[in-house]
């Protein structure tokens, strides 16, 4: 990875990242506003039963769940769009072509961009968790034991969205295809989570990988994290493979 290219990208796109960090902080603040509703245990129980019968009804826990469940969408949206924009569009393609007129291997240009995306996603995740903890602590509750254990899973999930965005950015120029893929990803993210089968709860959602064994506080499923990590590596390699063959007209 070329550190100078990485630094240039950060300088160029720092405002955009700051804007998304602001959205994350705003989200956590908005979640804190729901706290009075969550104090109502009967309401929480009803909601929890509908969503997933295994979930407990601790108010602070619910607050955490709300904050954590919002972060994959916000972070994922940022990573998806940003990943696409790093490689898509006429001006971007021209600037990449201009860079490649210098004696730089393509993989260095690719890694610099992916490195920027990874660091931006990490920053967004950490900001999300810090502001989430702030919101929880402000309500006078304690942070659950497993709270920070969700961070690696959430980060990897956001990175995975970014890599899908990169792949689309390299392979497609279509504005509508991007949006369609994002909607499908969003549905996949939430919809199948907590689906009941006859004998146990079946989870197909990527959220399952992020949260690991969420109903049992204090434990994180390492296998899930490894699976998600491998998917991220595969996504990164696939994007690099596509970029290596990209024709910069």
């Amino acid at each position: 990875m070329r550190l100078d290219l990485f630094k240039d990208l950060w300088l160029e796109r720092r405002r955009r990242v700051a804007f998304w960090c602001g959205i994350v902080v705003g989200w956590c603040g908005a979640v804190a506003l729901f706290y009075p509703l969550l104090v109502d245990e009967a309401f929480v129980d009803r909601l929890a039963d509908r969503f997933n019968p295994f979930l407990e009804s601790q108010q602070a826990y619910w607050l955490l769940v709300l904050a954590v469940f919002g972060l994959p969408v916000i972070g994922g949206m940022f990573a998806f769009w940003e990943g696409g924009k790093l490689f898509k569009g006429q001006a971007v393609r021209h600037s990449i072509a201009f860079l490649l007129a210098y004696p730089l291997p393509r993989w260095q240009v690719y890694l610099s961009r992916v490195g920027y995306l990874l660091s931006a996603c990490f920053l967004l995740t950490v900001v999300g968790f810090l502001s989430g903890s702030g919101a929880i602590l402000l309500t006078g509750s304690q942070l659950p034991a497993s709270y920070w254990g969700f961070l690696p899973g959430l980060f990897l999930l956001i990175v995975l969205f970014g890599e899908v965005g990169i792949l689309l950015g390299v392979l497609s120029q279509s504005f509508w295809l991007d949006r369609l893929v994002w909607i499908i990803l969003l549905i996949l993210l939430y919809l199948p989570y907590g689906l009941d089968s006859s004998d146990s709860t079946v989870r197909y959602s990527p959220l399952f990988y992020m949260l690991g064994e969420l109903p049992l506080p204090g434990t994180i499923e390492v296998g899930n994290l490894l699976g998600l990590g491998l998917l991220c590596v595969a996504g990164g390699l696939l994007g690099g493979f596509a970029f290596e063959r990209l024709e910069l007209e």
Partner: protein
Amino acid sequence: MRYLVLRTENLTKEFHRRPALCGVTLEVDPGEVFGLLGPSGCGKSTLLHILLDFIRPSHGQALVLGMDCQRNGLKVRRLVGYLPQNLTLPKGVTAGHLLERFAALRGGVEMTFAHELATRFQLNLDMACERLSPADRRKVGLVQAFMHRPELILLDEPSRDLDTAAQMELYRLIAEFRAEGRSVVIASQSISEMERICDRVAVLHQGRVIAVERGAQLRARAIRKIEMRFANPINPQIFMGLNNINQLVCDQNKVYCTVLGDPDALLKTATQFRVLDIISQQPSLEEVYHTVYGIPAYAA
């Protein structure tokens, strides 16, 4: 065997089964200024992009400085300077810092020479890139293309947006590089520019090279539209004897015609009378394609 700076053999490129280049075979000698002339979409930029390995040919081969431009892409790009047609500069940095960045990316660049070039083009290096005019952006592009004194320089529409003074400076710079034995390949739509600075010009039409002309040949085959205004009405018969005059129209004291090649005979004939004004215009590329190469104007 003759050393060639650039050699393409039967170079073909198709985009989605639509040919962008068809069997282009070209040779450029050391110290030569070579032009690629043609309208937009005729394959000039595509050819330059293949030479820099931005895109890969469907068929054929391109050797730059004796190296295969795909297998030895990095080595080739180290020795080549390039000015793209569409130059996108980053925001938030000054032109000077940007040139330093480019120099660091390339390595081995004398910044004193880069500053000298910027002075020659009257480029203010302290100005932020987003505040640069299109002409100044072009100058940044030109400085970065020349600053490492490359063996071969590829310029895509170099004089676009430039004012006359900057154009003249560019032509002087190209002449200096040529005198040092370096080669320049210029893609342009401007016939006058090609006539002026190129030793040889490849004329492209729909991805094919339809002619490779020497600069002098191009000048000799150049067409000019001439409008002359005389102090008194003129008898058109006196111009009819001139064999390189076409489309002659006389309107009392005004004469309109097109001259193919050297206008010497026309001017000598005209100066027998009192000339009040003379306007010479270069015809459009489409007209030249039609008149010289027999390609219909709409097809160019």
